[in-house]
């Protein structure tokens, strides 16, 4: 079974489908989410790598390049599984009170983990992409710092210079004088790996792929932004003779919260992204030819060649300034492209750097021209979300029938909104709980078991 042939066929079908149908395909970068279920059927030793390489689920979920990455970076697989599960649990936590509750019950046998909602380019899809990419970045960085990935190491050479170098360069500059120590390259590695791994299927050729790429990048930059530096001074009675600094990666809950905020303020981007608007006579069905132009153009992002027939170049060249924010200027790219970064060498990927960065070099345009263009941390989407009220099997939506709701809340978790006006059933059930706990010296907590009546409301 030649996999590349299959992929090629898929690719062609995808291309043709995007050309003919208005609904863009989901892109191909989403199958790997199934890795979350790797090692699940027999829960005996889910994370021992030896077994996992044999797991057929890997072959069915990972693309060839992803498998190569996993093979070349031993120890990464465990982190990926952890990361995927982290993403699922965080997504379900963030959406526990909403109509769409990030259910993964649609997953079976290689089908998409989050169900067919991913086929649509709606907000929820954007969130899924962002949170999965963020979770991979986070868990790879964590695994790096725990030392469970062999190909990434903490390089302390740059910080051993810090007290000296920073103070030689100038007493004029402000806070930047203090160089931080700590394993910065962990996050660099996580970022780079996530790009290589998560963005494999997304080439940015059509708008949907661009949306996925953007949301993946957004997830990663949220992780990077939450990497905190902490410093402390030591010295004779409170002076700062010796200053030590270290890095801390924030709890994933914080990143989940931030992404949820971005979800609430997500910006809708245009279907035929700004190509018609800028006065350029580019036909509207250019999605395909753009894609070809893009993939063949292995130019550096800033080389403005006049013959470049790629959508990105055109946007960069002809868009009015206020609409353009070229992505390479944003911090994540700069950090990762830093030639001193260890991570680049550690992630053994064969892709060319120039081409790879080129696909991040685009700016999506908001549908409402009065809105700001989406920033690097914003979540973008293409179409309105379905209401999620009724069961829609074509979209893989389960509906809110039978969901619990809160009758006093006026928010989305309130019964009015959750049940979409269908009304709800109120039940009183008996719950057995531990109660009236007392602390006995020393050291015991004794509780009684109580039978409490609890009222639950379920949507009809």
């Amino acid at each position, binding site marked *: 079974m030649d996999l590349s042939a299959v992929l090629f066929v898929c690719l062609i079908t995808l291309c043709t489908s995007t050309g003919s149908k208005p609904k863009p395909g989901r892109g191909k970068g989403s199958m790997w989410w199934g890795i979350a279920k790797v090692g699940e059927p027999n829960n005996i030793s889910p994370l021992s790598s030896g077994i996992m390489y044999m797991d057929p689920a890997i072959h069915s979920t990972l693309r060839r390049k992803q498998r190569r990455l996993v093979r070349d970076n031993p120890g990464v697989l465990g982190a990926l599984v952890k990361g995927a599960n982290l993403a699922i649990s965080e997504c379900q936590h963030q959406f526990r009170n909403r109509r769409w509750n990030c*259910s993964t019950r649609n*997953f079976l046998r290689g089908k998409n983990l989050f169900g067919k909602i991913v086929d649509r380019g709606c907000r929820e899809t954007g969130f899924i992409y962002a949170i999965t990419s963020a979770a991979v970045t986070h868990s790879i960085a964590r695994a790096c710092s725990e030392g469970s990935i062999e190909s990434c190491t903490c390089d302390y050479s740059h910080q051993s210079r810090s007290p000296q170098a920073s*103070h030689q360069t100038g007493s004029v500059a402000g806070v930047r004088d203090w160089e931080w120590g700590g394993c910065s390259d962990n996050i660099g590695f996580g970022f780079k790996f996530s790009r290589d791994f998560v963005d494999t299927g997304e080439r940015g050729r059509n708008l949907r792929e661009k949306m996925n790429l953007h949301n993946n990048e957004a997830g990663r930059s949220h992780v990077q932004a939450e990497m905190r530096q902490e410093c402390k001074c*030591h010295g004779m009675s*409170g002076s700062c003779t010796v200053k*030590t600094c270290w890095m801390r990666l924030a709890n994933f809950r914080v990143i989940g919260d931030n992404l949820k905020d971005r979800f609430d303020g997500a910006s809708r981007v245009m279907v035929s992204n700004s190509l018609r608007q800028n006065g350029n006579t580019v036909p509207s069905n250019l999605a395909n030819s753009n894609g070809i132009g893009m993939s063949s153009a292995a130019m550096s992002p800033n080389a403005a060649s006049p013959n470049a027939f790629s959508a990105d170049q055109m946007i960069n060249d002809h868009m009015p300034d206020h609409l353009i924010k070229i992505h390479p200027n944003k911090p994540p790219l700069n950090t990762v492209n830093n030639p001193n970064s260890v991570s680049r060498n550690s992630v053994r990927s064969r892709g060319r750097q120039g081409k790879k960065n080129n696909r991040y070099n685009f700016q999506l345009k908001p549908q409402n021209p009065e809105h700001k263009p989406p920033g690097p941390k914003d979540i973008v989407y293409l179409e309105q979300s379905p209401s999620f009220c009724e069961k829609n099997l074509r979209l893989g939506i389960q509906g809110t029938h039978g969901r619990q709701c809160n009758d006093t809340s006026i928010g989305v978790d309130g019964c009015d909104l959750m049940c979409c006006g269908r009304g709800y059933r109120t039940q009183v059930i008996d719950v057995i709980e531990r109660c009236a706990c007392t602390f006995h010296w020393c050291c015991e907590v004794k509780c009684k078991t109580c039978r409490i009546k609890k009222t639950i409301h379920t949507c009809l």
Partner: protein
Amino acid sequence: MYLSYYNYDEPLDYAEEEYDTILEENQSINSWANICESCIIPSTMQIIWYMAVLLGFSLLCRIAFVFCYYLPNKKEWLLHLISISAGCGMLIVAVGTNSFFIIFFAIISYSTFHLVNLFSPFRKNIGVIMVICTILTQLCSEQIWKHQIAWQMIKGSIMVVNMKIISIAFEMEQTVLKSQRGIIVPNVFSFFGYIFTPANLIVGPWVPYSSYLYSIRLNPMHQFRMRRVMWCGFCCLLSLGFINLSNCIVPYLISDPRLIWVRIFRDAFAVRCSHYFVSFLSQASIAAGGLCLDKDDKPNKWLGYMITQPIHIEFPRSLSSVVRAWNIPMHKFLKEFIFRGIYKRFKSHFVAIFVTYLVSSLLHGQYLKIYLALFSLAIFGFVESKLRKKISIAFNACVTAEACQKPCRFKYCPSKGWRSDGALLVKLTNILFSLATIFHLAYIGAMMESVADEGNDFADNLNVWSTVNFINHWLVLLTYALYLVI
């Protein structure tokens, strides 16, 4: 039609709550492995580099001394020159171009010495003049350069340099008073050699001029023994342990305390650990540099000349004993040059203590937190020792702030054995005072935490204290009332 489409893939009753457990596991960001990787290893690596610079230059200087000792014609200025160049080299490596500040300070004060020497009426008060001069220069330059981070970094070394200059001035004054001659200003080489000796240039401690000369003139091979290497190694290990306690372990173990007092105790402990770190680092560096604190000071068998005594601080007898054990050379400096002089002049214990604390806090530069902490400490300690003295006289019991002398002159003494009259009661009282001291120390220390940010706003600094309503200050007021009543 699409009903079947749907039902092919998914059984509807798939257990959905399975991820709730994973959620909890991932919360444990404060796990040991994480602390180790994210905090302990980076801090340790940074400090090891710093240690290598500090100890390396001291050692280099020492080795050069050994070579010079075997030169045919010994020149003392050569030794001083070695000391100066090693010190300057270390400064440039450790603080870069900012070492200019320190050199500037040293030159200014040396010329002041000569200037004062020209006018005979000033000669007898050169100590006081130099105290005022150095403090004024420091305060003025701090006013100019305060917002530079470089200043924060070299502040510690400038303090040590100032203490050295003041001590030279007072020693010169004493020779003047004794011999009734003009001041003999130390020659350029020995003066700058003392100021720039690498062993205590950056993290201190202050050592007297005599002990510097001692280390220069003695046979260097005599001092260069395995014993010092051992001291150095143990001190380094201790200081590494304390910095990790201060940076990582203490804040992460008690990461989010609900009770304000738990936070206060934690912060204060982190501050003390940070102080132990600096102290042991400086102890290691003077062990490597072959300095001794004082001619008649006995070194600890394992750790060399003690700068601080953590045990006496963690389990204190009284606040004044904490002050004594906090930074022993600094305490000696203040006692010898400031306290005694003032006491001789004004014959008042209170004034002497007040002026000593004033000079001590001014030596730290413009630093409101230090002023608040030191003056609170002064008041608390003063009240405590007064009260304990009064109690000890009233009951003839050994409850004074200072530990009783061995042949106990009180009637009730725990040192006379457990069985003796009232020993248990006296012991209990002392423990009670110790607990009060620990309480006060936490209260004062917690304010010193978070040194890195530049909050010179008065209210900002008092934030911690105001959250507990200045309770310790009220307590001390109450204690003072008790003292007056008794």
